[in-house]
């Protein structure tokens, strides 16, 4: 492990922690602008986290230790996920610990914990949210896996660092399968991050909420950790999307200069991605929950098509 790699990893972690709430704030701001509302300040998420960390935790009667442990587990999973996704550099000491398939597992682990915690207190909302989350999750995961298989077939490896190196530092080829996979990945990340066509992060209406229903019982620092984890998940998914489909500018091994240049590029890419996300959220209406399987089924289909097209045209 090189010193550059170590500092690059540390830097990527700190950057993830700092940028994640900013990204959420930026998406909210763009959404407000597009909907002709007065936008909240860009730093709103930080204010929220600051406020929540200074509040006392109120625990429900009968909450088991699992309920208290879950926010830390979810936060840890998301932190690990943003650490192993090559957002700035492919020289990540943590990256060999987990490849793209394990990454899907890490997201799954966080999902299991938050759903269990939602059911733990025994309120009807928590159970409802947990069930809906598991339904969305079990539909989104295969699609995400096949997207990763498609990209892995091109790079001949499931290691994220190798995939990024192959895609970013090779002569430009047009891969139709990447277009299919990118479309499927976008749809999956809407579902995974509780975004508008599938779930509305800004509502507390029992008919529509999925993610919010699960975290109703949380307060204080637990809620802060879960909010932060949600921001980190959005950040991790954005970085994964950028790494797989727009990998240009991600530094190679042992290259400090490229690492420094990658930071502003990442910020610009995230800003554009966040604006596009807000735009898609604004032009789409929230689907009925029973339409979500169809939406995710389409994502799965696109991913499978991508893989088939890859086998036929690019092998």
């Amino acid at each position, binding site marked *: 492990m090189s010193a550059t790699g170590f500092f690059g990893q540390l830097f990527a972690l700190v950057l993830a922690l700092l940028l994640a709430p900013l990204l959420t704030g930026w998406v909210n701001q763009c959404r407000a602008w597009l909907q002709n509302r007065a936008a909240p300040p860009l730093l709103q998420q930080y204010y929220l986290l600051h406020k929540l960390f200074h509040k006392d935790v109120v625990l429900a009667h009968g909450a088991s230790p699992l309920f208290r442990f879950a926010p830390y587990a979810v936060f840890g999973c998301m932190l690990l996920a943003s650490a192993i996704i090559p957002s700035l550099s492919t020289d990540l000491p943590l990256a060999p610990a987990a490849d793209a398939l394990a990454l899907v597992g890490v997201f799954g682990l966080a999902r299991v914990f938050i759903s269990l915690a939602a059911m733990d207190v025994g309120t009807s909302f928590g159970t409802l949210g947990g069930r809906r989350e598991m339904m969305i999750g079990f539909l989104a995961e295969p699609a995400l896996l096949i997207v990763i298989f498609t990209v892995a077939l091109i790079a001949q490896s499931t290691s994220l660092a190798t995939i990024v190196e192959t895609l970013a530092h090779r002569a430009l*080829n047009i891969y139709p399968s990447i277009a299919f996979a990118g479309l499927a990945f976008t749809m999956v990340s809407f579902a995974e991050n509780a975004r508008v066509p599938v779930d509305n992060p800004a509502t507390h209406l029992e008919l529509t909420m999925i993610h919010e229903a699960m975290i109703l019982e949380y307060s204080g620092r637990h809620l802060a950790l879960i909010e932060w984890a949600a921001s980190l998940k959005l950040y991790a998914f954005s970085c994964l999307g950028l790494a797989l489909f727009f990998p240009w500018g991600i530094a190679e091994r042992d290259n400090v200069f490229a690492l420094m240049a990658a930071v502003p590029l990442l910020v610009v890419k995230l800003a554009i991605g966040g604006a596009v996300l807000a735009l898609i959220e604004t032009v789409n209406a929230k689907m009925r929950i029973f339409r979500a399987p169809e939406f995710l089924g389409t994502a799965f289909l696109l991913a499978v*098509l991508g893989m088939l097209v890859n086998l036929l*045209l690019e092998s």
Partner: protein
Amino acid sequence: MNLIAHYASQLINLCAAVMLLLAFAMLAQRRVIHVIDLFALQGLALFLSTMVVAFKTGQTHLYYSAALTLSLKVLLLPWILHRLVRMLHIKREVEALINIPTTMLIGIVLVVVAFNVALPIAQLSASVARGMLGIALATVLLAFLMMITRRKAITQVVGFLAMENGLFLAATSATYGMPMVVELGIALDVLIGVIILGVFFFQIRDQFDSLDIHHMEKLKEH
């Protein structure tokens, strides 16, 4: 121009993949108007891929068939279909016999079959775009599926036209297009076919007050 030549086969592959994607979009689409728009887009992808094949191989007659595709399948036929939809006041959603997710899954199976069938044939071929044969076959089969699973006459006609798109793609990829006489004949057939079917639509609607072809199963001689 050099750049196009360099990326020619990849561009053709991309166009073919887009055509396949649009075939699936047509299967998933619930509104008649959008199905027609998607058909026009598929024609556009076909036009682009034919242009690239023509440029890459220097077959001048392919330019004519590309122009034919553009004028007929991208502009004229969608315009006629849009007019028909407007005159027949079809605003309803497309009624499918099988629900849409199941249709899509059947579609995936068809694509796998088509790719498998085409693979040995494609390996014999030496043309620029041999991988496209599988996609062309898949497009034909998907259009066929659309004709089978839709209840309304107008979406069946769009399915028929989309099938012709797939055949045309197969022709350009496998043998650099058919002879001009054949192509002109087919183009004219398709055009006349759509016009006659347009007349039929009015007859069917006058008879049954609906475009649902299931009513026609009960036809009797009086």
